[in-house]
């Protein structure tokens, strides 16, 4: 039975810092009935085959010669993912050929590694799914990814510090009773990238930067502002008996406030109990 590969939540920084690919061993190939996924080892010791990202698509280029191949950049608060879609990803290619940048998108993709010269790796994603998203989804993704990345940083940190005084950190981790897939990855990462406290501090700083970036613009801020604007407008126009709804709309229009936004703000204020409708078509603020 073949288990589906999990979709990692990972910032562009961690993925782009990676370079080592791990191919299935013959042993695993036999046991998994020919299912032989390849993995990219990240400096935090995750073996990644598939990722799920939500970011802003900023550039789309047609890089194909005879056949259309599309290259795009998807930006998160830590950096950018590069994605390629060609003839074998027809839905993604159609999406990229028509998307208007910038836009929020979600991507489920397989990790690809291209090594033009020894020592250099170019990491890209081959999209399985790409769809439009919104700001809330992006913010939720950043929080999820920050939590899961920080969990990984702390796991590595714990293992490194408990084996600090031992010359061969990796051997020490291996000797621990709870040696599992996670510790095996961490062990490989220490061997290949020399992951240590410097990198862990750098990642902590990146995670903080990412969450602070969304804290500056909390979700739903725009709507909240509109509620406040409309409430102030109602209070301004109310002379004690409430405000005629049509009058409210026309005043709003004269001040360049979108009618639809006023309508939804009024409904939101009614729902919150900030105003009420004494008669049909009359809105009266409760102060």
């Amino acid at each position, binding site marked *: 039975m073949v288990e589906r590969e999990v979709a990692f939540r990972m910032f562009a920084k961690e993925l782009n810092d990676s370079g080592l690919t791990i191919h299935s061993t013959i042993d695993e190939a036999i046991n998994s009935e020919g299912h032989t996924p390849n993995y990219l080892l990240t400096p935090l010791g995750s073996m990644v085959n598939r990722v799920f990202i939500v970011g802003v698509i900023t550039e789309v280029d047609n890089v194909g010669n005879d056949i259309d191949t599309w290259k795009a950049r998807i930006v998160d608060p830590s950096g950018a993912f590069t994605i390629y879609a060609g003839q074998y990803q027809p839905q993604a290619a159609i999406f990229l050929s028509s998307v208007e940048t910038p836009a929020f998108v979600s991507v489920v993709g397989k990790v690809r590694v291209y090594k033009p010269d020894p020592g250099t790796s170019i990491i890209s994603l081959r999209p399985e*799914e790409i769809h439009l998203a919104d700001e809330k989804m992006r913010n939720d993704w950043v929080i999820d990814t920050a939590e899961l990345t920080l969990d990984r940083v702390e796991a590595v940190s714990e293992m490194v510090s408990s084996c600090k005084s031992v010359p061969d950190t990796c051997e020490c981790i291996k000797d621990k009773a709870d040696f599992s897939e996670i510790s095996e990855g961490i062990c490989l990462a220490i061997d290949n990238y020399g992951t240590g406290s410097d990198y862990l501090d750098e990642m902590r700083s990146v995670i903080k930067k990412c969450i602070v970036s969304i804290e500056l613009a909390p979700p739903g801020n725009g709507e909240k502002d509109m509620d406040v604007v409309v409430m102030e407008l109602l209070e301004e126009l109310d002379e004690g008996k409430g405000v005629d709804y049509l009058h409210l709309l026309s005043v709003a229009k004269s001040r360049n406030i979108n009618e639809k936004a006023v309508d939804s703000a009024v409904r939101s204020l009614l729902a919150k109990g900030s105003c009420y409708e004494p008669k049909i078509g009359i809105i009266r603020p409760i102060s």
Partner: protein
Amino acid sequence: MDEKFAPHIEELTRALGHVSRSVIEDELELLLKYRVPIDEAKRSVLKKFRDSSPVTKKVNDLVIGDKGIALEVRILEINEKDVNLRGEAATIFSGVLGDETGMCSFTSWKPISLNSGDAVKILNASVRSWRNRAEVNIGDRSEVELLQDTDLPDISELSETPVKKLSEIGYSDMFVSSVAAVIELYHREVDVKGHNLTIIEGVLADETGRLPFVSWSLLDGVDIGSILRFEDASVSMYRGVPSIHLNESTPVRIVGPDEELSFTFDSVNVPPEPLPIKEVLQNEGMFDVSVKGNIVSVRPGSGLITRCPECNRVIMKNACRSHGVVEGIQDMRIKLILDDGTGSLLVMLNRELSEIVYGKTLQECELVMGKSMSANVVYDDMKNILTGRYLGVRGNTSRVEYGVTFVAKSVWAPSDDPENRISALLERLEGVEV
């Protein structure tokens, strides 16, 4: 041996922990001499040694499909049975065996002279599924040796029914004693050999989990909110989920308000907290759990489907596999992959839940499909709308041949307070400079 084979030998030694390095080297060298390619040679070596290594297992580690295993157990019960085996009369033995980790039924297909209470070592046994749980099979190639009587705990100790929390009950429990609150209860009419019988079905809960229960006797005075203490209740398994069976001879007592317990009805009668998907995947089956994550894929087979009115199977072009051409019934479903970054799970939504999640009713979908003249339009639209979105689901899981499947009973749109999560993260990152 050539230096370049060292990594392969290394790999094999790791994979075959019980075989010495020099034996592996000799085997591999021999195959290479015959010009067998290295990958083939490795495969052969792996296969050769894997089969010949008997694994000694405890009863609660038995897995359906195990072959060539060894067990050290005590026979708790044994019966002789005359059966018709492929046209020939034969005598088989069946009963119950156990060790300190649990009990398990067994069947011996060859004559064995054992008595209840005997301590034995069974070599080369296999495990098959019988009534949805593991059963040890003693076949022609198996060997049974008597052990010293003192090697295992006494029969009275092994036959004692364990007292367990609900989450600890599993494959290796045939009987169990516990204390749990009734959080759901309903009566059902069943037909038992021509007689109408009213039975009780419901859900029990303690602070560790929830399990379904069935009572074949009408439990006097028991209702939702009662806390029951029961002994020696039998446990049956269905798709990896245990259920508790009570009958007239099961001692059941309602726990009074004066008794100190580790939980109350109110503390256990709450929706389950979402679990990381990784944890759900580690179990064969789970009853009433919830998970949340992103929809990373909407699988083919989602959307509008047609079912056979006879057998409810999905049909294509008005023809059912077993009932031929039929008047199909329109239905809608969604099969999706939910992924939370720790694991991914196939979730099945029925028509009602599909309508909630997708936001269109079956009738609306039929209209859309009629207009577009394409059968895939609903599926494609679902993919567009749903992929990437957050979803929380509550329901039951079971492991089937393609992995763990989650059958949803309810769905919700998770709205975790982002501000709280951000401040929790900032607390964990205190002192870190940006």
